[in-house]
C-alpha cells in the first residue's frame, strides 16, 4: 500500500466503492449520451434510453454509497494483483501474437505466462503443459474443426 488506509475507512468498504463505481459509470455514460438525440417519448431518439438508464445507474450508486456505512463488508485485495496482471498480460500477449507469430507460438507463450500467476510453479510442468495444450488446440481447432488459423509465423 502506497498510503495508509485505516481498516474501517470507507475506502475499504465494498458497498461504498461499488456505489462510487456505479455513480462514475452512470455519470460517464450520461455525459457521453448527451451527444445523442434525446427525442420525445413519441419519437424516442438514440439518446433517450441511455440518458434514463445512466441517471438510474447514478442514483442506484448514490444510494448504495450513502447506506454503505451500515451494509458493506471490507474489501480484501490481498494476493489478487499478481494473478490479475499475469492473466491479463497472457491474454494481451496472445492477442498481439496470434496473427503475427501464429497459433503455436501464441499458445505456448500464453500458457507459459499464465503459469507465473502462481508462485513457485514447477518449471518442467509449465513447459510440459504448454507443449501438450498447444498440440491439443492445434489438433482440435485446426485438424478436427478445420478453422483457418495462422499456425506458424511464416
Amino acid at each position, binding site marked *: 500500500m502506497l498510503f495508509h488506509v485505516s481498516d474501517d475507512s470507507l475506502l475499504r468498504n*465494498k458497498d461504498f466503492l461499488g456505489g462510487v463505481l456505479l455513480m462514475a459509470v452512470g455519470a460517464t455514460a450520461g455525459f457521453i449520451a448527451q451527444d445523442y438525440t434525446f427525442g420525445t417519448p*413519441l419519437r424516442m431518439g438514440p439518446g433517450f434510453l441511455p440518458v434514463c438508464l445512466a441517471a438510474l445507474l447514478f442514483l442506484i450508486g448514490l444510494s448504495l454509497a450513502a447506506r454503505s456505512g451500515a451494509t458493506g463488508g471490507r474489501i480484501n485485495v490481498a494476493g489478487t494483483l499478481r494473478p490479475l496482471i499475469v492473466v491479463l498480460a497472457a491474454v494481451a500477449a496472445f*492477442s498481439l501474437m*496470434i496473427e503475427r507469430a501464429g497459433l503455436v507460438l501464441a499458445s505456448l507463450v500464453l500458457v507459459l505466462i499464465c503459469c507465473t500467476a502462481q508462485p513457485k510453479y514447477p518449471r518442467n510442468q509449465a513447459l510440459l503443459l504448454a507443449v501438450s495444450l498447444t498440440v491439443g488446440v492445434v489438433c482440435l481447432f485446426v485438424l478436427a474443426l478445420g478453422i483457418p488459423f495462422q499456425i506458424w509465423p511464416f
Partner: protein
Amino acid sequence: MDLFSNLAIGFEAALSPMRLLYCLVGVSLGTFIGVLPGVGPLVTISVLLPITYGLDPTSALIMLAGIYYGAQYGGSTTAILVNLPGESSSVITCLDGHAMAKNGRAGPALAIAAIGSFAAGTIANLIVAAFAPVLASYALKFGSPEYFSLMLLGLVTAAVLSHGSLLKSVGMIVLGLLLGLAGTDVTSGTYRYTFGIPDLSEGFDFVIIAMGVFGLADIIANIREDQMRTVFSASIRNLMPSREDFSSSWKPIFRGTLLGSALGILPGTGTTISSFMSYAMEKKLAKDPSRFGQGAIEGVAGPEAANNAAAQTAFIPTLTLGIPSGATMALMLGAMTMFGIAPGPQVMTTNPELFWGLIASMWIGNLMLVILNLPLLGVWVKMLQVPYRMLYPAIVLLSCIGVYTLANSTFSILLLALFGLIGLILIMLDFEPAPLLLGFILGPLMEENLRRSMVISRGDPTIFIDRPLSLIVLLIAVALVASMLIPAIRKKKEEAITEEA
C-alpha cells in the same frame, strides 16, 4: 394427437446419426469440463461455444443443449465428491451428497442423482412439448407493450431472486442494459458508446462478455484462493443404490420434478431456487428431519430432480417468447441469434425441425447422461484430481481462441481481457454478474419494444397499464418488489439463497 406428431418430427431430426454424435459429443464435453471444480455451466458453454460454429443451427443447438446438461450433471458430481459446487444450483447437493460420499456411499449418491435427473428430464420434456406450443400460439398475439412488460418482469424476478443486496443486482441489470445498447442504434443509425472504434459498431459481443465476466474473472479469483481442495481418492464401490434407496427416493424425485417444472417456466427463477425449495420441502416432509445433512438420500434425489426439471422447462420462455429465464438461457438465446435465428413464438412455425429437434434431443441427451456417466464415473473422478494449476491455463487458452474465432479479430481478445478485469472488480465488490448478462441480452429488445409501444400509443406511457395482459404482468412485478420490502419474506429469501448453505 398433435403432441406426438410434433415429437415425431423432433425425433426424426434428432435421431440422424450425425446429430446423435453431436449430442453425444456435447454431453460428454459438457460433463468433462463441468466436472472440473469451480467451472459451472455458464463457463462451460461459453468456452465450448466456438466448436459449434461450423455446424448447422439445429445441430449446433442440440450440441449446446447437450453441453448444458452435461455441465449441469458434472457440477453435481463435483458437489458430491469434493463438496465444491460448480454453480449455485448444485450448492444444495453438497449438503447430503457429500455427506453420503463421506459415509462411503458416493456411488449410490451419484447414481440416484443421475437417475433422478433422468426421470425429471423425461417428465419435464413432455411438459415442454405440451406447453410450449400453447404458450407460443398465445404469444403470437402479444404486442410490443406486452413484450416490454414481460421482459421487465423477467429482470425484476432476476433481481429479486439473486442473492445479496437487491440494490446491487438492480445496479447490475441497469449496467447490463446500458452495455446492451452499445453499437449502432437500429432506428437512427447513430453509433452509441463505440468510442470511435470500428470493431464496436456492432456493439459488444455477448460471448466476450460472458467469457470475460464469468470465465476469466472466476479464474483470476480462484488462483488467488489457491484451491487447496482435498482430493477425493477413495475408490467408488457398489454403484447401484439399494432397494431402500429407491423406495425412499422415488417420491422426492417426483415431487422435485413437479416443483422444478413449475418454477423453471417462470422468467427469472431458474434452477437454483427450485433445488433449494425442493430440499426444504423434503426436509419438512421427512419423518426424521435430523437425518438431513448427515447423508439423507432424499436430500440428493429431490433437489437434483428439481434442478434438472427446471433446467428443461426454462427452455419454454426462452424458445417461445425469446425471453431468457436466467444467465445460462441468455447465453443459449445469444447463440441462437448468432446462428441467425430470431428467437420468439415464430421459431416453432418457421423452424419446426429445429424446435422439436432440440426438444427431442434434450431427452436423448438426458438418456445419454445416464448411460455415459455411470460407467465413466472412474474417469470423472480422475478429472477431479487434476490440479487447478494445470487447469486454468487451459481455460484461458480456450477462451482466447474461442473469442478470436468469433470474428478473427485480435481486438476481441483485448476486450476479453477488459471484461475479465471488470468481472473481477465486480466479484471483489460483491456484485452478482449474472443479472448483468440478462440485462445485456434484453437491453436492445426492450428498447425496440418500448419504442414501438410509444409509437402505438402516440407517446402515452399509460399504454402499459391500459392493456390488461401488460397490466397483470406489471402488477406481478410490483408485487414481487413489494414482497421484498416485507422483512419476514426477505429474511426467508436470504435463508433460501445463502451461498454457503
